[in-house]
């Protein structure tokens, strides 16, 4: 069964450093999402992406964040200058055209020291 994959599973970085989290969505899906879950809190929407542009973003998704689909398979989330409060589990999700179900990856745990 096709699945969303994410790399790395864990990332530790120093405050102020740039990180790139990678996702490979399900191959025929066209809608892509990033969510995050700070430890002990709810899963929060960050951004949705369709047709090579952001379709919606939350107030969390400020200028420090960017997303890109650099090729036909990867979908990346970049945090330009990480802060301590960016420490969280980041989930990628994808959805096919004409469907309502988002399929989630296993997540990347980001720890900012």
């Amino acid at each position, binding site marked *: 069964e096709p699945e969303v994959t994410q790399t790395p599973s864990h990332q530790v970085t120093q405050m102020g450093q740039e990180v790139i989290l990678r996702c490979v969505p399900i191959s025929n899906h066209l*809608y892509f999402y990033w969510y995050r879950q700070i430890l002990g809190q*709810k899963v929060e*929407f960050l951004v949705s992406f369709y047709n090579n542009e952001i379709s*919606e973003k939350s107030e969390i998704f400020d200028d420090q964040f960017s997303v890109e689909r650099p090729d036909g398979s990867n979908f990346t989330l970049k945090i330009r200058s990480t802060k301590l409060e960016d420490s969280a589990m980041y989930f990628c999700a994808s959805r096919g055209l004409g469907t309502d179900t988002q399929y989630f990856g*296993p997540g990347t745990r980001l720890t900012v020291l």
Partner: protein
Amino acid sequence: AQSVTQLDSQVPVFEEAPVELRCNYSSSVSVYLFWYVQYPNQGLQLLLKYLSGSTLVKGINGFEAEFNKSQTSFHLRKPSVHISDTAEYFCAVRALTGGGNKLTFGTGTQLKVEL
């Protein structure tokens, strides 16, 4: 905007007992409703969803949920749990109109099945 409330942060239950995980939502527009499960060290897996039609929906692993529009609830139930059901369960909603495609999640309920 939408919001989801899962009042129970943890639910301990003995194996083979029934369980209900509660979910209430708030929205000014109609919504789709979802339950996701997260097993330890894994991603979110869809359990079931309500889009329209019958208010009782059945999902994987013997779970079912009932949509109650008047009570704005979508409680998850299983008549007999197994130790392997130990996981975190998330209720989520998506607006049909005006809210984009994003999912709004509750805070999750940790189901712990004991022998």
